[in-house]
């Protein structure tokens, strides 16, 4: 629908708020009716040292150590970080680089745990059954300790969002059950099968942040999940504080900012978080994990993964321990030969295409797709010149002008691109999806963002170098002056005139050039 018509409809109250643009890709939700199956333990689990947005973890275990399920094996370094836990009991066999789900195909240091089959559980964490009366700070610490990160795919550490801040009182908790990516059905199945747990999890979030209202947003292509959630809400909703909202299917409705706008009409200001407009948004999978962490005392060691794709004989939703190699999951569903196939981690609109199936399942793995070359070919054919049709601008959910941005990125006009708000791009892929010229617009944006980040790093480095160089020059200058002063003192036996400018320079120099002041064998002389 054209933007203006939509605005009109909104103003007349015929429609709720609706973000601009968006697309309707083919759904392919073939595994939607398949119940979640529990995947068997893998012989070896591989745990990359970073499974969230933020700083990587450092290992707490050594080769040969025996670990239990749920035992913390890597601790977080820095605030934006969460620890990693052993997915099952076994022995640490090695710690070395292993490929991860990253477009570069580069590896990451990972802990390899050889499964012993006992699946013995580490029971240090007690369930917090009376969570309703617990201190929110304790619950928050539990979320951090249990390694919770957004399971929708962005893996932002969950505990950071679960905060009470007087300046930004949270009114509404939004549960994101949109799952707008094609193929993926893990949230769909989770909502259908664990509606009650999710609802309790949401209550916990509400308690933690002090919110009064709760919304569970589900797209209308998941009627079973809607029914299940409604049933669960009806069964326990004595306060009438939680509502299930059915939204018309549109990609990228599941994107946090778009969802918030659709449900509340509020925009998260650029560079701010949803909490700044009184909202917290959590994925249903994360909410279920929060329930497990608090009510059962279980750290995050497993998640639901949709294994699907047009090249996979038996698409399924699997409950998988973290660290399970993707190859085993594909094999379980009947796919062994990967020649000519494309493996995608996540959904087709935003997921990474992998070099091969030899990556472990991590916290962000909401889906693993095996696509035939034909299914991918339409998106990756020869790029043709832009005919400026403007379809990308229409499809952009945040109202950027993608074709102009791509021109700027292509011709290295990065300042201009930043000026055109390149960094607000959420890389949802709508522009590339609709482009009649098959321009990989998102790829250009990623290139541009990378180049700008590189330039900024280089500039910061150059600025630091310049300061070091200047302080060094100042120091050399001062040493020369001192030497000259000493020489003149030796030559003239009269009392030297005090040099007034000296103490000042010495002071600034000591502060900036501590590295080398001791090495350059010039201790500032005692001086009257």
């Amino acid at each position: 629908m054209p933007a203006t018509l939509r605005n009109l409809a909104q103003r007349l109250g015929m429609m709720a708020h609706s973000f601009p643009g968006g697309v309707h890709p083919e759904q392919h939700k073939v595994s939607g009716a398949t119940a979640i199956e529990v995947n068997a333990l893998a012989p070896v689990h591989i745990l990359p040292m970073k499974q969230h947005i933020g700083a990587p973890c450092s290992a707490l275990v050594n080769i040969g150590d025996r670990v239990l399920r749920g035992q913390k094996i890597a601790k977080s370094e820095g605030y934006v970080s969460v620890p990693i836990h052993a997915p099952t009991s076994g022995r640490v066999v090695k710690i070395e680089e292993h490929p991860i789900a990253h477009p570069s195909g580069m590896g990451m240091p990972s802990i390899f745990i050889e499964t012993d089959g006992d699946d013995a559980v580490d029971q240090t964490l007690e369930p917090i059954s009376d969570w309703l009366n617990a201190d929110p700070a304790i619950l928050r610490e539990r979320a951090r300790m249990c390694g919770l990160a957004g399971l929708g795919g962005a893996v932002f550490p969950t505990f950071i969002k679960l905060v009470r801040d007087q300046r930004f009182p949270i009114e509404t908790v939004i549960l994101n059950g949109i799952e707008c990516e094609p193929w993926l059905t893990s949230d769909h199945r989770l909502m259908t099968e664990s509606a009650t747990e999710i609802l309790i999890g949401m209550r916990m979030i509400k308690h933690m942040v002090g919110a009064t209202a709760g919304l569970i947003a589900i797209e209308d292509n998941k009627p079973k999940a809607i029914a299940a959630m409604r049933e669960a809400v009806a069964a326990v909703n004595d306060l009438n504080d939680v509502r299930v909202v059915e939204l018309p299917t549109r990609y990228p409705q599941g994107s946090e900012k778009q969802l918030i706008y659709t449900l509340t009409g509020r925009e998260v200001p650029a560079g701010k978080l949803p909490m700044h407009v009184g909202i917290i948004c959590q994925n249903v999978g994360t909410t279920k994990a929060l329930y497990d962490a608090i009510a059962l005392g279980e750290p995050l060691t497993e998640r639901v993964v949709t294994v699907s794709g047009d090249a996979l004989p038996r698409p399924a939703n699997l409950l998988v321990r973290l660290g399970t190699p993707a190859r085993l999951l594909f094999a379980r569903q009947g796919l062994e030969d990967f020649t000519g196939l494309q493996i995608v981690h996540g959904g087709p609109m935003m997921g990474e295409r992998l070099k091969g199936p030899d990556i472990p399942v991590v916290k962000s793995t909401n889906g693993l797709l095996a696509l035939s070359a034909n299914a991918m070919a339409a998106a990756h054919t020869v790029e043709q010149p832009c005919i400026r049709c403007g379809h990308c601008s229409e499809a952009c959910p945040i109202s950027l002008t993608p074709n102009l941005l791509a021109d700027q990125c292509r011709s290295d006009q990065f300042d201009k691109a930043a000026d055109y708000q390149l960094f607000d791009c959420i890389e949802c892929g709508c522009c590339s999806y609709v482009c009649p010229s098959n321009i990989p617009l998102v790829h250009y944006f990623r290139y541009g963002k990378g180049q700008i980040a590189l330039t900024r790093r280089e500039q910061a480095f150059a600025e630091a170098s310049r300061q070091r160089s200047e302080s060094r020059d100042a120091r050399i200058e001062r040493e020369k002056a001192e030497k000259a002063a000493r020489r003149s003192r030796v030559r003239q036996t009269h009392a030297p005139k005090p040099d007034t400018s000296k103490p000042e320079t010495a002071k600034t120099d000591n502060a900036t050039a501590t590295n080398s002041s001791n090495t350059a064998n010039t201790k500032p002389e005692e001086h009257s």
Partner: protein
Amino acid sequence: MTEIALTLLSAVLVNNFVLTKFLGICPFLGTSSKVETAVGMSFAVMFVMTLASTASWLVQQYVLIPLDLLYLQTIFFILIIASLVQFIEMMIHKTSPVLYQGLGIFLPLITTNCAVLGVAILNVQQDQTFLTSALFGAGAAMGFALVLILFAGLRERIEIAPAPIAFKGSPLALITAGMMSLAFMGFSGLVKI
């Protein structure tokens, strides 16, 4: 009132100095590679052109004609323009070093921008009054500014086009300027003065 508007319109669109009289082509091509520079150049030229046309009118009326020195017209006008250009050059150097650097040689070259002298001479030839000569100068300057800024926008776009090597840069700019000129011919006859 109508006459003022028509004079302005005529100078801006119908008798555009660059695209229909083909005056001031040198800075038109030289300072149009970036919109920002073009805007700076436009303001500089507007300043010089408006003041030059009024000052030259005054000199013509109160110095040259009474003293019967019409043969010194060109020298006097150039003197006025040169002083104004010097003035604005110092001003820009002080206020905007980047613009100063961007305009480079074209800033002092406003002196020899034939459009400026053209306006001054056309003014006295057409027996304009003080007001109309000021308006004519301002209008001509606005016309220059308009096409210069439009052209700079276009050039920023063709800069990144994969044009054949033979046409890349100035040739393509000239072709584009030619097409603009053709388009501006559509205005011909719009204002009959």
